[in-house]
């Protein structure tokens, strides 16, 4: 059995086509390329928090849709993004993951062409050689990429036609980000990456469904055990974004203390709230600390996860220490939950890539309650519309209606 085989007849789970997935969406190299071109190269991609570029000249290097980028805070304090490519012959300009420009100077190591943080070419080595052809430094500049910052969150977009960031997010999400993620004068105190052997969507799904909370002892004891747990609702928004209502978590059930002091604006003591930005970002606040996850697909079966932890800039050393402790109780490479999530999605990949598992069921219906799969159906609706593909059958004609599989 190979994953490239199309689902047919009795292979299907006997569910409406919206309620299961063709597992080739995870493994098919052509789908992976379409996701790169029609999703990651089109959407506003979260790249970092502005406090990671706190000083003029601070930069980060990264890739979006496989394109190498530099995000840099200029001498005018504005954050801009450029292709991390020398316009001369295409060599990589900045090779460190992060740093600070010295004297506003970016120099290509290959032929020593120079640029500043506005992307202007400031120097061409041995310029006399270009006199005959007439090339001047102001004829060439780094290729700029659209960059917008909202509540400290820095986004880039490779596509000139995509709507502005706030339109991409929509008013509900902008409001959801305003508090607590945008109102608390936050800064990043934790950053780590994990390279996962799995498809990016499998990890993204863990941030969009509460059913897998059963996996985590932490969530079973501190979340599911709460009597109002079932009252919590997911909310679907424009463009596939999601929010998860605030709920109060019982940290004391696991001897993890209380989060009643130092709560961020808009948060209840021991409160928990989630905002998922399509397709890959989760902002998660557990009362006193914020976590931001984002994903970089590397291959169909390889994904880079970046995790950030945020607290208040105005923290005293004691407050920061407490916030870090609370962050690490659950999150980070030494937290309780991440090893479990990663193990789950890596075993999914190991099985699905062999063809041993041909479809995935997303059929729970609980009125958008915490364990409803409506969130995943919403995600795959947005996903399908962007890449022009049905998630239940990647070979089905698009956009033609496909008959329900429950009535073959």
């Amino acid at each position: 059995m190979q994953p490239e085989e199309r689902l047919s007849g009795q292979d299907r789970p006997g569910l409406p086509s919206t309620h299961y997935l063709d597992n080739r969406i995870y493994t098919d190299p052509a789908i992976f390329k379409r996701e790169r071109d029609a999703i990651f190269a089109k959407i506003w991609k979260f790249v970092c928090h502005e406090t990671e570029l706190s000083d003029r000249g601070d930069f980060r290097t990264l890739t979006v849709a496989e394109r190498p980028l530099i995000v840099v805070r200029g001498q005018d304090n504005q954050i801009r993004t450029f292709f991390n490519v020398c316009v001369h012959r295409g060599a990589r300009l900045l090779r460190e993951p992060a740093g600070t420009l010295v004297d506003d100077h970016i120099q290509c190591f290959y032929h020593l062409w120079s640029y500043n943080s506005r992307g202007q070419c400031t120097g061409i080595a041995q310029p006399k050689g270009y006199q005959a052809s007439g090339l001047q430094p102001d004829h060439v500049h780094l290729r700029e990429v659209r960059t917008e910052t909202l509540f400290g969150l820095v986004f880039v977009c490779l596509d000139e036609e995509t709507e502005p960031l706030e339109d991409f997010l929509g008013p509900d999400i902008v409001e959801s980000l305003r508090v607590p993620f945008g109102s608390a004068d936050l800064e990043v105190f934790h950053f780590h990456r994990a390279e996962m052997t799995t498809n990016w969507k499998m990890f993204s799904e863990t941030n969009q469904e509460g059913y897998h909370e059963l996996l985590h002892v932490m969530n079973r004891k501190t979340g599911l055990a709460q009597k109002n747990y079932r009252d919590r609702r997911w909310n679907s928004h424009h463009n596939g974004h999601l929010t998860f209502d605030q709920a109060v978590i019982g940290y004391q059930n696991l001897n993890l203390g209380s989060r009643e002091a130092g709560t961020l604006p808009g948060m209840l003591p021991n409160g928990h709230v989630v905002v998922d930005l399509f397709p890959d970002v989760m902002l998660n606040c557990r009362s006193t600390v914020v976590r931001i996850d984002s994903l970089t697909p590397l291959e169909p079966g390889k994904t880079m996860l970046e995790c950030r932890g945020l607290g208040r800039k105005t923290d005293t050393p004691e407050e920061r220490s407490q916030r870090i402790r609370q962050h690490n109780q659950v999150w980070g490479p030494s937290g309780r939950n991440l090893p479990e999530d990663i193990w789950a999605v890596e075993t999914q990949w190991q099985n699905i890539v062999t063809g041993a598992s041909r479809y995935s069921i997303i059929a729970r219906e609980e009125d958008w309650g915490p364990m409803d799969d409506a969130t995943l159906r919403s995600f795959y609706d947005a996903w399908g519309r962007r890449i022009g593909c049905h998630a239940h059958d990647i070979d089905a004609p698009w956009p033609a209606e496909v008959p329900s599989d429950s009535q073959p």
Partner: protein
Amino acid sequence: MNATEFERMRQRIHHSGRCLDDRDYDGFVNLFTPDGAYRIEVDAPEMKSKMTWMTLDRDELRQRFQSVPEQVWRDIETTHLIAVDTIDFEGETAKTSATVSIFRTDDEGRTQVYAVGRYEDAWQRIENKWQISLRVLDLRTRLLPVPAPLPL
């Protein structure tokens, strides 16, 4: 301090790694003073100040180990290779620095380097026994193939 004392301390540092490899978690916790603590710290180019990825006092260490049976964490065999670099005694306290490589051997017997770093330990002698008042693992490996919910 005489050579015997240096050797005792060296063995004590090696024993800390052996406890983790042998899953002798009580033995590991008992290496710490009652108010002892364990931290993992990381310097990363993306951050301007050092990060703390784990901070557990002795009770929390014990709790973390006791939670292993109910958690769904991969129980991967480890081997700590420790080289003690410096031992500085000062009365009833000491500071030590050791380089550590942690190997993981999976179910199929495949071994890979998992992480490298340095143990920067502070010790106290209590009832003629050296105990850790603070262990800081200064972790050089930042891209861990599998997260590490247990002390390394």
